[in-house]
């Protein structure tokens, strides 16, 4: 296998062109859990660093969600759509000097589809042929995957960082999750080389001088540091005092301070994450979609966006985010109208039969709902309490119940438990939106089938959507799907909260969008006079 023997990342001199040099410090509340181990990571922060900083994915997506070459310089799909062949760049090296090649790509796929690895996002490979039959290393820089024709076939290769076969091939798949590679000794091939990790404190990366020029070459920064600062007041202070250059995910109530400070600026972008109340439609109170729609109509979601997010957000109608090509801009969700909601509820079997202010069904069971959320999350508690107040006038009794996160997850996702009526949660879809696990009747007994929804029309759409390759053909189906979701209201979609980022003015070249905060990290620059 080829090596770059002269590879000296850490000691390479800084180019003296005035644009290079300096250290940018980012601050976030959470540790990069599992670090650079692409086989185990589900966290947003870790994924960002894997995809854009330390590792490389085969492709990246642009602002229009179109795939662009990255580690793969090109790709082709067989006419029948059953083979996907990637041509790998020949000028990318692991940071220990080994060349990245097709075997690394095949290794990543084989481990990710091996059940013993327990890869946390198995849906990526739903339509791929798993195991050795599904991949062929054609030559050192060509690899072919076998699959059934489906939509957005490149999406897994945008998300999963390629892992080094020469370092991890001997690790049993069942031990990959706990292997120290991720957080102790990562070896990547991306624009930044891992330098050090102080647990709970910081990650330090250094510029990779051998990063291919066609992909942007050596980053302008010498070093990129991620600091873990769990308290958001402290994070804001560190930004305002110049100790950090970027504060990730600041609170809406802190935005004004960042805007007013002459040395900082506020960057915002629409995220994929939305907050919702998931209904357990197995419960008799919530089995009738009219009840769920009436609840949505009596919830003032605009007011929630204003109160909780200070306007930094938009009301959500479905899980398809507004920036997505499949989004239906003409979709109308249930408008806030308490009177119409009461009228709609009157059409159902739920009426206040004993005059106590709470509706009952024909057998006398009251319309009472327990809405669970993770204790300590003040925003979600506020949402539950707002609903409690608003639904009381509709004749629905809501009991908010804050639960420890493990207990919340168990009650919601353990198919043998499912002990809740409503569940306040946030969800992030991949760029390939696939809600089969959430709403398809065949998945109702899987962990994510908490809605328990069984609707043949939705099943048909869910089955079809993932198989239509052409976006133009798929778009009308997606619009039908979103309308069906609005009709059925399996979840009460609340809002997409904008991601807010505080950035020091000395840090230039930062562009954030729905792909994340570090998409342009290779172009980040610090003015020479203000270099750390």
């Amino acid at each position, binding site marked *: 296998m080829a090596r770059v023997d002269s590879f000296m990342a850490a000691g390479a001199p800084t180019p003296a062109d005035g644009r290079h040099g300096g*250290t940018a*410090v980012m601050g976030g509340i959470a*540790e990069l*859990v*599992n*670090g650079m*181990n692409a086989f185990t990571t*589900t966290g947003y922060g870790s994924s960002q660093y894997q995809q854009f900083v330390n590792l490389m994915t085969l492709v990246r997506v642009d602002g229009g969600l179109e795939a662009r070459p990255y580690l793969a310089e090109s790709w082709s799909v067989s006419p029948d759509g059953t083979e996907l062949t990637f041509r790998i760049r020949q000028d990318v090296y692991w940071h220990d000097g080994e060349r990245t090649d097709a075997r690394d790509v095949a290794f990543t796929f084989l481990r990710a589809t091996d*059940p*013993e*690895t*327990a*890869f*946390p*996002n*198995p*849906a*990526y490979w*739903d339509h791929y042929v798993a195991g050795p039959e599904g991949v062929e290393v054609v030559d050192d820089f060509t690899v072919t995957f076998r699959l059934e024709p489906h939509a957005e076939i490149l999406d897994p290769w945008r998300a999963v960082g390629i892992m080094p076969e020469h370092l991890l091939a001997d690790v049993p798949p*069942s*031990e990959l*999750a*706990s292997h120290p590679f991720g*957080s*102790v000794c990562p070896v990547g091939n991306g624009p930044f080389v891992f330098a*050090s990790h*102080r*647990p*709970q*404190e*910081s990650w*330090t990366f250094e510029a990779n001088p051998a990063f291919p020029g066609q992909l942007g070459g050596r980053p302008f920064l010498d070093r990129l*540091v991620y*600091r*873990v*600062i*769990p*308290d958001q*007041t*402290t*994070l804001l*202070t*560190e930004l*305002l*005092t110049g*100790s950090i250059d970027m504060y990730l995910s600041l609170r809406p109530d802190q935005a004004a301070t960042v805007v007013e400070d002459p040395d900082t600026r506020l960057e915002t972008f629409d995220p994929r994450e939305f907050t919702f109340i998931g209904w357990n439609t197995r419960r008799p109170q919530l089995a009738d979609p009219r009840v769920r729609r009436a609840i949505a109509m009596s919830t003032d979601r605009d007011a929630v966006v204003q109160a909780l997010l200070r306007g930094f957000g938009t009301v959500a109608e479905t899980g398809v985010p507004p920036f997505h090509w499949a989004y239906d801009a003409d979709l109308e969700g249930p408008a806030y109208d308490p009177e119409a909601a009461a009228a709609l509820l009157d059409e159902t079997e739920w009426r206040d039969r004993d005059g106590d202010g709470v509706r009952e069904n024909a057998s006398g069971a009251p319309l009472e709902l327990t809405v669970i959320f993770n204790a300590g999350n003040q925003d979600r508690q506020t949402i539950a309490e707002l609903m409690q107040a608003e639904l009381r006038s509709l004749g629905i009794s809501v009991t908010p119940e804050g639960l*420890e*996160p*493990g*207990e919340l*997850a*168990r009650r919601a996702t*353990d*198919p043998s438990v499912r002990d809740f009526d409503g569940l306040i949660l946030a969800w992030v879809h991949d760029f390939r939106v*696939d809600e089969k*696990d959430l709403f398809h009747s065949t998945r109702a007994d*899987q*962990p*994510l089938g908490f809605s328990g929804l069984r609707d043949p029309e939705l099943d048909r759409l869910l089955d079809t959507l993932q198989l239509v390759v052409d976006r133009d053909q798929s778009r009308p189906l997606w619009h039908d799907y979103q309308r069906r979701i609005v009709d059925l209201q399996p979840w009460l979609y609340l809002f997409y909260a904008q991601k807010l980022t505080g950035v020091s003015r000395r840090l230039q070249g930062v562009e954030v969008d729905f792909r994340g905060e570090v998409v342009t990290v290779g172009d980040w620059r610090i003015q020479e006079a203000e270099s*750390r």
Partner: protein
Amino acid sequence: MRRYLLGRLLLAVPLLLALATLLFMLVELAPGDPADLLISPGMTNEVREQVRTNLGLDEPAPVRYLRWIAAAATGDLGFSHSRGVSVRVALAQSLPNTLLLTGVSLVLAFALGVGVGIVQAVRQSSWIDSVLNLFVLTFYSLPSFWLGVILILVFSYGAQSVWEWPIHFPASGATSVGYDLMGPGERIVDRVRHLILPVGTLVLVMGAGVARYARSALLEVIREDYVRAARARGLGRARVLFRHALPNALLPLITVFGLYLPVLFSGAVFVETVFAWPGMGRLMVDAVASRDFPLVLGGSLVFAVLVVVGNLVADLLYAWADPRVRYG
């Protein structure tokens, strides 16, 4: 004394064993496991079961307990899946930071508290006593996490960005970015600067409590006949205070020292969070959040050992401070 010490150390063994067993049971009783926290697209029951198998959680609890306790007896506390290293290594990375923070805080809190208590007792009912009492009560009643935020706003943000004082302190972390590139002298200065605000928070809150105990203990002692007798014999004020009154007033403070250790470790959790101090408190919070059972157990066991050792030290200090107390 040596026999007493040996006896206490031997007694600590069954105590720690019982504590370890209790901790294991408590962790077992806690709902959920790491697999439950995996909520991602495509997550199936099979994947969850595989995660449990990979983490060794598929075995019955008694088997896991016996395996864990046997390994722990040899110093092997298991593997931390959330940190990707052995529990021993994870603890070794965090424990020194917490010991530094709490150790310095403990010493300074007692020095400050006893000092303030002495002044208050000596100047009882004077304006000095009243002013100090106001401060003591204020700091005593303040939650440490709130005081920490205030100190950050004043001595970090305010001092640097608003009032532009010549001296200001870092708001977070144990070291600065670029610490590895510093010389030995710079490193020490950097460490001390990062210690000042978190230590200041703990010292003010804890020192206020110590001051209250010290004041009342000293007031009680200086009314004793032997102190009056010493004064009557014409001994100097300082000699009476430091030679006769203070040693006897120290006894209840030693009890406070023993009682403060668990409070200190738990209080440090909040301070470590506010100041992003990479210590045991945050380690434990993260371990609980990620259901990293071996790390929770290992960390709790270390806290238990520290408290047992701390109380043993308090007992020995008793014997040192009061010649009438003899063990053995």
